[in-house]
């Protein structure tokens, strides 16, 4: 059956062309397939970044009367950065963002972990509970904002349920506004934490867990010695992800308090929004945006480095 093929005259000298060799070499072929995407990414990511760097060292605003690319005419030697360091409103926004992060992320983590632990074993109705658990995450943040805006009204269900008078205000009180916002954030994002941690927990090989039990380890001991160490990578991912997301929290607060009362719930995102559309200080916004990007990148890189080391 192979005779027909053998009669074809062998042509030893025939060499394959470049593309034919590419077709047989997985690495080369991969490069050509990825190239268009790489170019697109370059355009989408690198170009705006460079633009931001450029603007951040100028006085340029849209009212300047010159197009942005001529912003070098108002070059200011990075004075924006100095201004930022001495801007109390910036530091206040940063502090409030950090506060949300410090309170909400650990709360989400512990709640998520506890819920995930409940969900590793099968129980009746597990699937239904699972679906219910995940709904808050799917709700549009603006709608969550609206929901909590209504819940925390003076005459709203929260006060009614707690038996508090209508004058007991949540969203307009200097301290309680922040608490309301944090509660709303926890409500919305605990499910995501739960989902990631559950995936991590299910990734712990069940026979290792069984082996640990057979060796006499209590559930508590096995959780701390077997499950938790094995989840390190997932935990770092979840915490870093949620922490970074805290800098982006916007719609929720915008609807609940608009950053108020005063600037009591004004986070970095709201501050930037106001700077952009209120003050039209676009170069200053570029400065802050860039700074935060760098800080977050450093934090994320640190987290990932720790993770890589643990897994190494």
């Amino acid at each position, binding site marked *: 059956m192979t005779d027909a093929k053998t009669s074809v005259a062998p042509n030893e000298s025939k060499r394959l062309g470049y593309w034919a060799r590419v077709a047989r070499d997985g690495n080369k072929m991969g490069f050509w397939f990825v190239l268009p995407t790489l170019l697109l990414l370059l355009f989408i990511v690198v170009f705006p970044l460079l633009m931001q760097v450029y603007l951040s060292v100028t006085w340029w605003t849209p009212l300047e009367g010159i197009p942005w690319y001529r912003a070098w005419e108002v070059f200011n030697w990075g004075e924006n950065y100095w201004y930022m360091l001495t801007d109390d409103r910036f530091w206040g926004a940063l502090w409030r963002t950090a506060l949300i992060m410090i309170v909400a992320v650990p709360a989400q983590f512990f709640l998520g972990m506890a819920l995930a632990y409940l969900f590793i074993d099968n129980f009746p109705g597990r699937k239904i509970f699972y679906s219910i658990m995940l709904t808050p995450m799917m709700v549009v943040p603006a709608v969550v904002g609206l929901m909590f805006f209504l819940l925390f009204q003076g005459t709203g269900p929260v006060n009614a349920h707690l038996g508090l008078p209508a004058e007991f205000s949540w969203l307009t009180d200097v301290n309680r506004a922040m608490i309301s916002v944090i509660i709303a954030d926890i409500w919305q994002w605990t499910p995501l934490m739960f989902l990631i941690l559950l995936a991590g927990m299910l990734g712990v090989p069940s026979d290792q867990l*069984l*082996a640990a039990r057979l060796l*006499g380890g209590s559930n508590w001991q096995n959780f701390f010695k077997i499950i938790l160490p094995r989840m390190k990578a997932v935990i770092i991912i979840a915490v870093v992800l949620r922490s970074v997301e805290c800098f982006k929290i916007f719609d929720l607060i915008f609807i609940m308090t608009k950053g108020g009362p005063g600037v009591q719930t004004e986070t970095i995102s709201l501050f930037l929004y106001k700077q952009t559309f209120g003050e039209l200080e676009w170069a200053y916004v570029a400065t802050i945006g860039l700074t935060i990007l760098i800080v977050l990148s450093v934090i994320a890189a640190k987290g990932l480095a720790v993770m890589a080391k643990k897994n190494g």
Partner: protein
Amino acid sequence: MSSIQIQNVTKKFGNFTAVENLSLEIEEGEFVALLGPSGCGKTTTMNMIAGLEAPTEGAILFDGKDKSGLRIQDRNIGFVFQNYAIFTHLTVYRNLSYGLEVKKVAKPEIERRVRAMADRMSISHRLDQPASSLSVNEMQKLAIGRSAIVEPSIFLLDEPLSNLDAGFRAYMRAELKVLQHEFGQTMIYVTHDQIEAMSLADKIAIIDQGKLMQYGAPLEIYNNPMNRFVANFVGSPRMNLIDGELRDESGQLKLMLHGGAEIPLAGQVKSDFTSDNNAHSGSFGIRPQDIYFGSRRGDDDIEMHGVVEVLERVGPKRLAYLQVLETDFLAFDDQDQLNVGDEVRFFLPPDKSMAFNLSSGKRLGASVQ
């Protein structure tokens, strides 16, 4: 150390019966293999002994006591998993010490016992390394050591050798036997490999489709299989089991085979077949090493003619597939004298042959109690 009584245990998963009315007595310090093809219920049986599954019916007693209420943690069972279930995020040392740590054993005592066990399993030089860096062979040793260090009352092993290469498997087989003598523990070993079961166990329980087929010492089972399944399953290469219809042609009883060949029955095996009046079809069994070539050795020996179809080298010998019309007989080519395509004469000694009822699978004849 414990004795185990499995009493009429049945395990159902929905409509599927994994184990059916199984009873076994395992004595203190005994090494018992649960042997059967995959999906036969042997692993379910072991899981029930370990307490990982609860029997649907029946009871499992340890030294006469029911432990079904106990948590897994409190059962004191050593369990070696097929894939070892090593804690790959911990060092070798911490793997070994885990069972002692969780029991709050004193640090110096842990250290002493870990070092002794590591020495015993010859993995001392690896103690401080991450367990994930071990070779498969070392993981195997670590898995056994980790279970043995807590001195469990019974030791369960789930196909522990199946992931190893052939050379190390042969070594580990001998090693396990020595370990069992040293630990002196009751050991239960699940395997689908009859060679492992034969070479290791004091007793073998052969299970098929959830039912116990035979329980006894390895050679007892090999020499005296109670049914066709056991005869087929135990022994390597497998026993020749030739199915056919019994026919009496003017006093000469024959087994008519599919495809037209026939075995004229004689001697002991003939009386085995006739011992059951209801048997119309039967299975003729003979082990490959009992078939011989050359000149007749016994008056009753059954003479057959066939063609050498395939020759396989199996260890020191060549195994010949002798084709008689559509039926194959396996025999050893002891003298290295056969060639593929040869027409040969061979003999089946009746006193070494066995008879089985084809429909029930039961062994026929007086030689079975």
